[in-house]
């Protein structure tokens, strides 16, 4: 049984301007000890997906299936989902400065989660907080546990956020852009820490990012999202060596490369992400798609392309798949 199995997950918000279909039916699976990278531009529905798995959407229509360790979470009683949160599925948020509570000490915030799920004395929970802070490489953890988030540097704060996630020994960690707010060098350290802990503890990890470089570093599988749908899904090594979807190719082309001739500009994908209120008909990517521009097909504007198996474990949602690979 897989640790996490998501099928046909869709999230729709009712807004004043009309319904927003932020996620439009995506599937993915996370195994124990493996890392799934979810990549996509801003607004592609990555965070909405992660919050849907946690059952943290309030006032949004969430449909489809989220099975965690065999248990269906969608439609499950709030109380039973609450018991999983933090305890078996933990989250690492992007900006630890705003995601940690400004009024409470780091130690308090970790101990609070631990006591909620494991009970025991305040003292034991504090000791546990100091222990995990040490685990994530925070020097002098006993002293730092008594400090507030604003007294931490950005990197240390993100480590503390990871410590909070690890404190209850979860089976799955969902990290939503855990390094976006950090300096490049600190980014690498925090990423290595996350990957290291994941390996050491055999956790499932969902790593959300808009940076393919991060994916290349630690992901086993990759889900490329565009406009709330999956554009392409593949094992990481395949995605980098044999990308199929024009959007994935565009993302790869816009990566800075060490072997690029000096002075060659980065090629960003032209155009901007689709409006969530009025997405283009057919394939959401076609207005920006280089292949569509060249081989324009009515297929691209008629229906949303379905994900099709193109190789072992590799799926692509492009009506012009034959053209691109041919």
């Amino acid at each position, binding site marked *: 049984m897989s640790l996490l199995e998501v099928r046909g997950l869709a999230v729709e918000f009712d807004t004043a301007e009309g319904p927003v279909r932020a996620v439009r039916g995506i599937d993915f699976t996370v195994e124990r000890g493996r890392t799934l990278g979810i990549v996509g531009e801003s607004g592609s529905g990555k965070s909405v997906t992660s919050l849907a798995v946690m059952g943290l959407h309030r006032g949004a229509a969430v449909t489809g299936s989220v099975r965690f360790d065999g248990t269906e979470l969608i439609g499950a009683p709030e109380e039973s989902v609450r*018991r999983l*949160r933090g305890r078996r599925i933990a989250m690492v948020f992007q900006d630890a400065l*705003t*995601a940690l509570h*400004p*009024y409470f000490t780091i130690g308090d915030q970790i101990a609070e989660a631990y006591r*909620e799920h494991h009970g025991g004395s305040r003292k034991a929970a504090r000791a546990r907080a100091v222990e995990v802070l040490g685990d994530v490489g925070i020097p002098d953890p006993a002293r730092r546990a008594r400090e507030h988030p604003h007294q931490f540097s950005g990197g240390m704060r993100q480590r503390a956020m990871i410590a909070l996630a690890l404190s209850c020994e979860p089976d799955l960690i969902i990290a939503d852009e855990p390094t976006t707010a950090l300096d490049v060098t600190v980014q690498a350290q925090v990423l290595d820490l996350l990957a290291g802990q994941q390996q050491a503890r055999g956790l499932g990890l969902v790593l959300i990012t808009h940076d393919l470089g991060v994916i290349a570093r630690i992901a086993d599988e990759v889900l490329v999202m565009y406009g709330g749908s999956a554009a392409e899904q593949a094992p990481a090594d395949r995605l980098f060596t044999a990308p199929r979807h024009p959007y994935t190719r565009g993302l790869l082309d816009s990566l800075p490369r060490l072997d690029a001739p000096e002075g060659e500009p980065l090629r960003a994908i032209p155009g901007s992400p689709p409006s969530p209120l009025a997405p283009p008909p057919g394939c959401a990517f076609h207005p920006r798609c280089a292949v569509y521009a060249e081989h324009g097909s009515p297929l691209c504007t008629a229906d949303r392309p379905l994900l099709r198996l193109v190789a072992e474990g590799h799926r692509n949602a492009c009506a012009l798949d034959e053209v691109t690979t041919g």
Partner: protein
Amino acid sequence: MTGFLLRRLLGIAGTLLVICALTFAVFYLLPSDPAAQFCGKDCSADRIVMVRQQMGLDDPLIVQFGRYVLGIFAGQTLGSGQYAVHCGFPCFGYSFQSGQPVWDLMLDRLPASASLALGAAVLWLLLGLSAGLLSALRRNTWVDRTVMVATIGIAALPVYFTAMLLLYVVVTVLGLMPYPRYIAFGEDPVGWIRNLILPWITLALTFAAIYARMTRNSVIETMAEPYVRTARAKGLRERRVVGRHGLRPALTPVATMLGMDLGGLLAGALITESLFSLPGVGKLFADSLNKADQPVIMGITLLASFFIVTSNLVVDLVYAWIDPRARLT
């Protein structure tokens, strides 16, 4: 911390000095002659000259001002020879009307004002916070809309209208109690409450409406903060998420406002006290204004300023105590 306190206290002293100077200047510019005031109706020109001399009104303004300020801290002797009176610390001079020390007059009236302000504050906090919280947690439901419409209506009610309506219904029509009169708490606690209930409601209603709206907005805002989402992601119960992680930051601005409002009200709620004939500082102020009783007006102005600047300091200290990020300054 000590440096911060010291700086703030100096700032307070400076502010009070400036306010004192301004009030002093205003009275100097007024056409009324304090000597004539003090002397009474049938006062000969000769006597007025004598009184002017005795009161030091012929001295340059700056000297008079210095004497006044010094007097507050060190006391002063007014007049000379057999007419000399010593006015001890803290000396705010004597009322032209009653001849009593201003300080004693104010001290006398303070309990009624404090009773009114503190009791009303308890009432408006209970009403405002619970209505605001309920509205925020039931956002966009009929409960929320009802509360919000009600607050607009209540906030628009003039104080004198509320007071008259309450008196008419409770005292005249229903006869639930006699016309309220102030009874000191120490004398009869139950009587104190019974007689203050109508003034409390009158004063509290407007504040309750404002506090309800403020609490609602503040709670809605904080409940959308990332750290509240984190609290949920930790698997905490919703009660704890709201009570511990959401409410504390949401109430910080409310606490700040409470400090300011209380500071302003301690030195008297002018209209409410007058409407209910409560012997408070506000009533004293209104009466003194009518009679142009300069020393009393000066004294109360300074007392009110003192309460306001001090409550500002208290608010800042409380703020630093609840929000660790504010501690660095």
